[in-house]
């Protein structure tokens, strides 16, 4: 048995899904764990039985930093690591929050932005 190696791969399919407004992660039919970014076999157990599922979008801030820039270079902005409910971690940003206003442990919700270059950001969930 060999892996399918022609046609759009997991990375291209992920981007097509994002363009269509769906944020997906892969889950493993053998070990049940999720993988992100997308890959050709499960990084946890090596199984090829990966399927795409639409992510819940529910996350928790694992860590954060404010990247400092001069105003003429775009000013300061936040960066966050977010743990998704599905068990994967993303490097991302929290929109609508100042550079230093992203509490570790805060609940966040995913949203797709970026038009032709779609990517996933998060918003703070009002408790």
């Amino acid at each position, binding site marked *: 048995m060999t892996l399918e190696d022609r046609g759009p791969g997991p990375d291209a399919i992920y981007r097509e899904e994002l363009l269509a407004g769906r944020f997906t992660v892969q889950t493993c039919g053998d070990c049940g764990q999720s993988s992100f970014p997308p890959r050709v076999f499960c990084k946890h157990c090596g199984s090829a039985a990966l399927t795409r599922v639409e992510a819940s979008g529910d996350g928790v801030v694992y*860590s954060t930093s404010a990247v400092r820039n001069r105003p003429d270079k775009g000013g300061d902005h936040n960066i966050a690591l977010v743990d998704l409910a599905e068990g994967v971690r993303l*490097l991302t940003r929290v929109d609508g929050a100042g550079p230093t206003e992203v509490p570790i442990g805060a609940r966040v919700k995913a949203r797709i932005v970026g038009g032709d270059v779609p990517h996933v950001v998060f918003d703070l969930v009002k408790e």
Partner: protein
Amino acid sequence: MTHHELRGASAVVGVGLAGCGEAPGRTAMELIGSAAWNAVTDAGLKMTDIDGVFGVSAVHGMPSVTISEYLGIKPSYSDGSMIGGSSNVAHILQATMAIRAGLCSTALVIYGSNQKSASGKLVSSAAEFNPYEQPYKPRFPITAYALAAARHMHQFGTTRQQLAEVAVAARGWANLNPEAYMHGPLSIDDVLNARMVCDPFGLFDCCLVTDGAGALVVVGRDRAKDFPKKPVYFLGGGMAHWHRSIMQMPDITVTAASESGPRAFEMAGMEPADIDVLELYDAFTINTILFLEDLGFCPKGEGGRFVEGGRIAPGGSLPVNTNGGGLSCVHPGMYGTFILVEAIRQLRGEAGDRQAKGAETAIVHGNGGVLSSQVTSIFGTEATL
């Protein structure tokens, strides 16, 4: 206890530096060449005696080949494995294996860069393009380390004052080292009040960007005493890496040094209490705290409290980063070479005002990427064999 076959199998018999700090007008290869010449001369050898080359570079795709050509060496064995700033620390282990296997007899381990004079900014393999990171505009590698520091602070109560202790200690050592790039007083308040770069890091939490090259000559144990300088023996080495992208690091408060360290200690038949002087890759202040924990010098989470009160500064109970570190001595992109050279100088007793008194053992811990590749080496004097 049975000795690992690599314990004591090689010795460093020559070290050299060149262009550390600023070397305007010099190419990277000229700095590499000068460091090689200085190390080979320190060993009482000629360049033509070198038959193993373990070289790395931030800008050359085939570093050991390019370096060998420039130095006029036709090696019987060479390796240019690129695992970031820990590469040369790994090369000490690889040179020891190659010598032990008879593939070469006299190895040169080397790195150099002119990045301060050439570009003024960090030239680093850690900045390679990742489409899953790039849209969010991280400033790599700094942002990744800042995320680790922020999580460590959240989880263990580590403070910016404790991070600042690391920078202040490094400057204290640099002030005793005439070759260090940064000199002068630096207080906790100076560190806390500096311009923020990537929270929780201010300017002084981040390593320097300098020029510089370093080289070491490694031979088999049987020849260790045939050279003019006191040999320093390789006692143990270990490698580990778990991730390349910071989002793939399982727990960003625990590095793979927690595996590389025990591997090196096991080979050496030692434990942290046996180590006299520590050279830990301090790209950022959090690094020193993480590596003190992960190498077993204090419990996980206690690193911030451990460094308080000048414990790792000159006059403290544990000499750490005695050249002034990447924070205050030298950091030309990949710093592993320079902690190796400092450890050898300490164990030779050549470290002048910053000499750790009576040091017989040293640990060198290299880091690469974004807390990615971790490589530990343990060295000792003849008394430790």
